């Protein structure tokens, strides 16, 4: 039997900090407000966080490889502009529009991946550049205008309920299950962790580091495409400014959930909890009637708190 020491307890608490924090906030909210625990409110929180949840999912993989993706917001805009534009102006069928959205988003993922992994440019700057490119092209394509009243299948996505649960939430949960398995149980997941833990060692061990990073970005692109479809469905419209600033929230959620900027660690249950925590805190601010301008600042505080906890956790975990 191993002796349980104070340090072990602290380590355990730090490792499950995000879940404890989430539980704590939920507890406070359910005691202090009457509406938090209602089904409508919970579904509302889940719906509000669904887009960020999908983006964080893709970003978590990229973060674990030791890279980053700031482009997701811009890519959402450009892929949406291309897909919805073709439907609205070109008269393309709805499914072709959806495919274009996914394809454009994946092309951006591939560009990010190639530049970062094969040309070895810093991920931060590369994806910052593609963010601008995406955002700019979205404006070029749409001329800055918005498009409303999308075809029926888009509305179907956002208005269908399965046993009382919105289809969108089910899609997000399904994605999490599938990718959770992909990260934890498949060879691709192993390679992602290996590359992020120590790229040199991975290379010596015969892992194709560049290809793994490229795949992570490509997959992130795919998920950005899905997030874009969900977003335009939910709003029943496309607007060129969609997804502005969303990357910072998606990255923050993944980091809160235990992924590290330096790579090698992170998992999707953590990321999901991170997404929920941010959603619940937003919800709390709404329920308490806090001014919208304050909400932005509050989000900043939460992220800061999470990063401080992360730094402390790293220090604790680097001693036995």
């Amino acid at each position, binding site marked *: 039997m191993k002796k349980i020491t104070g340090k072990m307890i602290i380590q355990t608490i730090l490792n499950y900090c995000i879940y404890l924090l989430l539980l704590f906030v939920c507890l406070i909210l359910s005691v202090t407000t009457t509406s938090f625990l209602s089904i409508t409110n919970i579904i509302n929180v889940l719906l509000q966080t669904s887009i960020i949840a999908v983006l964080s999912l893709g970003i978590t993989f990229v973060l674990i490889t030791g890279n980053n993706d700031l482009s997701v917001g811009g890519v959402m805009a450009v892929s949406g502009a291309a897909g919805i534009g073709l439907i609205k102006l070109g008269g393309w069928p709805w499914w072709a529009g959806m495919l274009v959205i996914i394809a454009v988003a994946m092309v951006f993922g591939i560009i990010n991946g190639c530049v970062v992994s094969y040309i070895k440019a810093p991920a931060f700057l590369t994806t910052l550049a593609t963010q601008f490119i995406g955002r700019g092209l979205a404006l070029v394509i749409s001329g800055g205008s918005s498009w409303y009243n999308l075809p029926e299948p888009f509305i179907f996505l956002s208005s269908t309920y399965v046993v009382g649960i919105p289809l969108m939430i089910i899609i997000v949960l399904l994605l999490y299950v599938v990718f959770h398995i992909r990260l934890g149980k498949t060879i691709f997941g192993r390679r992602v*962790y*290996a590359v992020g833990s120590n790229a040199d*060692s991975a290379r010596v061990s015969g892992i194709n580091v560049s290809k793994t990073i490229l795949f992570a970005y490509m997959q992130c692109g795919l998920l950005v495409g899905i997030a874009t479809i969900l977003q335009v469905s939910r709003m029943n419209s496309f607007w060129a400014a969609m997804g502005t600033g969303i990357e910072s929230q998606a990255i923050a959620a993944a980091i809160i959930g235990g992924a590290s900027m330096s790579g090698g660690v992170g998992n999707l249950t953590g990321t999901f909890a991170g997404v929920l925590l941010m959603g619940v805190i937003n919800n709390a601010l709404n329920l308490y009637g806090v001014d919208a301008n304050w909400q932005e600042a509050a989000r900043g505080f939460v992220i800061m708190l999470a990063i401080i906890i992360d730094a402390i956790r790293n220090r604790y975990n680097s001693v036995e």
Partner: protein
Amino acid sequence: MENLCLEMMGIQKAYPGVRALKGVDFSLKYGEVHGLLGENGAGKSTLMKMLGGVEKMDQGEVYIGGEKVIFYTPSDAQKKGVSFIHQELSLFPDLDIATNIFIQDLPQKSSFIRAEKLYSDTKEILNRIGLAEHSPREKIKYLQMGERQLVEIARCLTMDTKILVLDEPTSSLTKKEVEILFFLIRNLKEQGISIIFISHRLDEVFDICDRITVMRDGEKIATINTKETNTNRLVSLMIGRELSDRFERTGYQADKELLRVENLRRGEKFQDINFSVHAGEIVGLYGLMGSGRSEIVRSIFGLEKYEDGKIYMEGQEIKVKSPIDAIDIGIGLITENRREEGLMIRQSVYFNLLAANFEKYSKKFLGFMDKKAETEVCEANIKELSIKTSSLKKKAQFLSGGNQQKIVIAKWLNRSPKVLILDEPTRGVDVGAKFEIYHILEEQTKKGKGIFVISSELDEIMGLCDRILVIRKGKIVAQFSHEEFSKESLLETSMGGQEK
């Protein structure tokens, strides 16, 4: 008693489990170049750490210019005129020469840098060290390695240096650069500066040093005038030790040829490399740091490029462009830096044991990992190689050096390569684990694998290998069979004697 610039008396230092210095005396005359020789681990660097104030000695006294000094920090030592030049240079590549030289004391006036003084002072110093053709405004990154070393020496000059310690200054220099360095050393000597010169290259030691001190196992063996000695004498002073507790390989049955390398070449790093490794054989490559030994195996493994030459596996010519190719044809490489390239230290023992082998334990369908097979393999590894860890989930960083190295070896054995290449396999590994690793390797030869070992430890390479190649300055200069090799022959061929 003659005038001594530096006198160290009865220096003792112990680290947990090892007495690094057992009462060492050392003296340095004014304007003398004093060579410090000894095998790895003889205590040279530890002694110099005491002199530089990097670490505190347990016992002993140090006098500089007859005055007793006690150093608590490196800057204490610097104030007394002791300057170090390390193997890894400490320059700022993006700053110019002038700023690098005066970085610790930039001429300033109310916190603005006095540029004209800075650059004119630098100009003067550059003349002194023979770099007059360079502008003080040139950035360090545009200088050759040897020139950088000179800049580093120039930095020491601005600090009113009395004693200059050069730790293997020539290991990364070309012949031409070594000449300039030696010219400068002689110059400094005339200016009355005393120099301690640590090197593994005997020819250089004979070339530049007035006196030589030989250390072995934390003790000073002798201090001799260079004129009164020769290579043989020095080599025998350096080894001296009994060969009692050495691993001795038994039985050796070389089978068919596995790996053959023909005329491998890469620029200045290595040329005309020819050797082969047979099944059931352990071949050693002995040479000093910087002799090109690691570069050769890294090229064979596809981590670095080679310009010319052929590599064969079982008679078949192969092209290696990346480690993936090398692994596919049955080569495994354990690099010399375990933490950087061997392990993923933040991952678990489990993860590391399988890191070279994800394909083998994943199912074809959707690439799911076969957790049961994985766990079985890991448990077998732990047992067979007696890796000491409380659980498979423990992070690799919390294991001892020996156990970490066993994990890296196991990782490769799981891949079952035909030829396993090990670069300094027991660096930072305690004695017990060392012998276990030797036995593991010997066991593998019985299974028909070929093993190629790079080592700078004589005992290790002689006890372990059936054949030894000696490399010096990028060329294989000698080859010895098990019956032929001796410490003297290995040391002499690898260092290059004084006659030349």
